[in-house]
């Protein structure tokens, strides 16, 4: 499968970077073709500019070159895997900016003039997976309402193939976790990525044997 792995974290020696490395090696082990998009490493510009805002309607033709290149990578993929730390309940600004600027009219959806509902355009994406770490425990995130989770599982999902499958792989309570828990999460991600179809498949409950269960 063609997999676009999008990651966000400013530090190359962070836990998230280790999780990303495990995800990439798991995907390779599963025989997938992987395009790694490291938003911080590629110095992605997250702020939608005035020109882009003005040219919101005309579609992809009027977009800047970097957006066109990112759109092509998105349209190539059959699976999208997001790897990021959850900050303030959601995706880091740089990844939010990737949504703001790349998942736009003409790429991710089409909104005919006067229409009330968008038409999804990313039918090429059949698997959508989020791999994320939360500093605070599950309980706190539940009270916050998990805004980042809604964005991935509801909104991004809505613009993919109508039968696209999703999976939420999260480690909660990283602030108070020990090394064994973090290593277990890294191993769980590697195994999950090697079985990408299985974990997002119709029998999506198929879980790696020893991983901690991240209930969704």
């Amino acid at each position, binding site marked *: 499968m063609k997999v676009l792995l999008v990651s966000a974290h400013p530090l190359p020696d962070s836990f998230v970077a280790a999780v990303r490395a495990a995800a990439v090696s798991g995907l390779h082990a599963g025989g997938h073709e992987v395009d790694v998009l490291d938003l911080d490493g590629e110095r992605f510009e997250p702020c939608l500019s005035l020109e882009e805002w003005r040219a919101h309607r005309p579609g992809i033709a009027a977009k800047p070159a970097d957006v066109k290149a990112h759109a092509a990578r998105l349209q190539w993929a059959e699976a999208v895997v997001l790897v990021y730390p959850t900050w303030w309940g959601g995706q880091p600004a740089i990844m939010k900016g990737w949504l*703001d600027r790349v998942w736009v009219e003409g790429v991710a959806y089409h*909104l005919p003039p006067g229409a009330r509902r968008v038409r999804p355009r990313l039918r090429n994406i059949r698997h959508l997976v989020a791999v994320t770490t939360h500093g605070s425990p599950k309980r706190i995130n539940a009270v916050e309402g998990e805004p980042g989770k809604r964005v991935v599982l509801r909104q991004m999902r809505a613009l993919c193939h109508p039968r696209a499958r999703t999976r939420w792989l999260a480690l909660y309570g990283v602030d108070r976790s020990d090394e064994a828990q973090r290593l277990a999460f890294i191993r769980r991600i590697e195994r999950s990525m090697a079985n990408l179809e299985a974990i997002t498949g119709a029998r999506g409950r198929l879980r790696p044997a020893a991983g901690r269960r991240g209930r969704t």
Partner: protein
Amino acid sequence: MRALVVFAHPSGDSLSHTLFRTATTALAGAGHEVVGLDLYAEGFRAAMSADERRSYHLDDAAGPAELARHAELVRWADALVFVYPTWWMGLPAIMKGWLERVLVPGVAFHLHPRTQKVVSDLRHIRRVVGITTYGSSWTQVKVMHDAGRRTLLRALRMLCARRCRTAWLALYSIDTSTDDQRAAFVTSVERRLARL
């Protein structure tokens, strides 16, 4: 009250900018002290840098000068007002980045040295207000679970004063709205903020 109005929109002639001007004027007119932060106009950087992340949990706040200024404003304010267009059901990246880069340990919270639990430093904030516009209809926003509102009225609200009050002023279906509807929304924002 002392209100900090944080605003994000690239265009000076957008509805969002009108709402920003209306909000600051209405608050000042009602006798509140107001400071407005126009993130795009300031050229605020959205993404947290590697250096900032490395010193995130350290006490020495030797970050960029604009962050120290913004942090000082957060300490000064007792009301936070956010004005933005909802993109992707949430805050524009620049405003999400403002939360991440300004509301850091030492400003918004700190981790308890023994338990590593989050302890809030924002208990002086008594009001949180969100003013936003949605392309989607009210129903669609509810189905998608309104990430922006959750970020501000739950995740941020959780750290504010225990009896902190919140308000959410939103215009839905802006793509198909009429001039009258938009004008009525601006008037309602003006009236609501005048009696904050």
